């Protein structure tokens, strides 16, 4: 890793507290609003922001985030415009920022060019849902050489793969709470404690749980088991419902969720 300080920025948020990680799709409803939402959520106590680079075919997403991807693309959001937005945000906040996107936008942009630009604008890590362990070799090297963490995803179906995946993880481990795609769920049935125990045997990397979490009660329950809680669809739904006027509602929501972590 060329820039160890920057990598530490992600781990640091878990150092003496449970972390609240917020996801939103860049460009929904506009990049100016995305910038405003990110700054408001950072002020309200979010510890890390995942910024979704919209993709035409987000196969790991449920209907809520999929619709946000479509809205963002319809208003002409591009990777370059998102980089410009991150540059503006970085002038105003030091909060760790992670991109979430699919392989194709990165590959077609050019791996080296993508990660070099991430480093330049101040992105700390990348989550790529359709890049499994078996295919990540080159991308991991590129990310590492620019000081970015390639976040490891572990799923309820990972079973015998858990330790292989965890051993390699940096930044944080994204533990997928449930089968299926992203989206709010009333109940999470996976035995998260058992998976986290498996991870702990081989890795000290913090574990954050995402997929399906929407309420402060769920956040409390999950934060008893894990180092952090990730919320996406519930935030994207607020943005979908309130559009440009979502800022105060997002701030209030993030404040309540962060307060619910124990």
């Amino acid at each position, binding site marked *: 890793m060329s820039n160890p300080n920057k990598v530490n920025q992600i781990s640091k948020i878990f150092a003496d507290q449970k972390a609240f990680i917020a996801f939103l799709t860049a460009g929904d409803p506009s990049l100016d609003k995305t910038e405003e939402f990110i700054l408001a959520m950072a002020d309200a106590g979010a510890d890390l922001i995942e910024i979704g680079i919209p*993709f*035409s*075919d987000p*196969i*790991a997403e*449920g*209907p809520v985030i*999929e619709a946000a991807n*479509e809205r963002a*693309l319809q208003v002409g959001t*591009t*990777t*370059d415009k998102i980089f410009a937005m991150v540059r503006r945000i970085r002038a105003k906040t030091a909060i760790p920022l992670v991109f979430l996107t*699919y*392989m*194709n*936008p*990165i*590959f*077609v*942009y050019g791996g080296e060019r993508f990660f070099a630009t991430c480093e330049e604008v101040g992105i700390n890590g990348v989550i790529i*849902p*359709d*890049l*499994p*362990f*078996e*295919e990540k*070799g080159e991308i991991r090297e590129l990310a590492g050489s620019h000081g970015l963490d390639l976040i490891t*995803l*572990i*799923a*309820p*179906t*990972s*079973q*015998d*793969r858990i330790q292989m*995946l965890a051993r390699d993880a940096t930044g944080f481990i994204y533990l*997928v709470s449930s*089968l*299926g*795609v992203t989206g709010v769920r009333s109940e999470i049935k996976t035995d998260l404690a058992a998976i986290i125990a498996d991870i702990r045997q081989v890795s000290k990397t913090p574990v954050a749980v995402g997929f399906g979490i929407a309420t402060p009660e769920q956040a409390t329950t999950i934060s008893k088991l894990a180092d952090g809680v990730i919320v996406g669809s519930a935030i994207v739904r607020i943005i979908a419902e309130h559009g440009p006027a979502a800022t105060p509602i997002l701030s209030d929501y993030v404040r309540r969720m962060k307060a619910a972590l124990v």
Partner: protein
Amino acid sequence: MSKGKYGIHGGQYTPETLMNAIIEVEKAYEHYKNDPAFQDELTELLNEYAGRPSRLYFAKKMTADLGGAKIYLKREDLNHTGSHKINNVLGQALLAKKMGKTRLIAETGAGQHGVATATAAALMGFSCEIFMGKEDTDRQALNVFRMRLLGATVHVVTSGTMTLKDAVNETFREWTTRVDDTHYVLGSVMGPHPFPEMVRDFQSVISKEAREQMLQKEGKLPDAVIACVGGGSNAMGAFYNFIPDESVRLIGCEAAGKGVDTEEHAATIARGSLGIFHGMKSYFCQDEYGQIAPVYSISAGLDYPGIGPEHAHLHDSKRAEYVPITDDEAVAAFFYLSRTEGIIPAIESAHAIAYAMVLAPTMSKDQIIIVNVSGRGDKDVAAIARYKGENIHE
């Protein structure tokens, strides 16, 4: 370690949630493909149930009319369910049975793969759910009813462009939700490894038979094999056993829709670029930021923005050629074959017929072309009538 590579193409770009399911399929396939009992059981199904081997028919009138190379038609349209899709589906359904799965899910474009999957599910006692884009359920209404008749549930996909690509997205999403009892019967030589290899192997029965039939009838190999290409399963099946025969030209016909110079086409090789999507590295129709392009073809089965990784490699290595065929050319060929030989081809297969009509007159009378008639055209009659301005209700 990256698996399932064809040159630089292929791979296994799949969410972690599906990796163990895909590895399970891979291991099962590795085991059963070398198991003589499995192969015997599959051959029995293909022969007794699906009606194989399919005929290699000498199209005498078409040959005389075009005045060049002799044209043989590989009659996959005569298979049970009306297309080549049954070859792959019987293989995967049998494998799913061995794996202890009880539920099949599949995407479909024209509906032929959905019908074949629903058929195998009925035969072998699986529950079955098919995902089909809304655009396609409208233009292939007859096949939607056939699937329901066979006991399958048809989910109408309304996301994205509401065509084959979106049906694939939705089937992957469904598989992520329920992997334990469910096998995803991918319908083409695409997706993450092992699907491109497995589907190609199950479809390669087409060229295995065609090669033997040709040697028996003519005592020599053909000079060209022509097949239509969307994802590319019938073409891969028709090409595969001819790949080592270097004298045999392999020609894939892509859907050029309203023309490759318009924005309304699905000509991946002619107009696409390298990308990573639907589990594989290959060529895709996309923009400079890697957003997958909305594609168009009159043929729902070719209306797909990508192509299987082995085709991408055959293109790179120049072993196969890929040519674009427009809607107009395909519709003309649809009528031509119907009236010349009394065979109504699927509008997909008509793309291959169209190129045979261009190529045959340029060849000499002692040369031979095999055209793979991948499916029959009953499903397309109403849509072609509409294209010609007649309003037929199915």
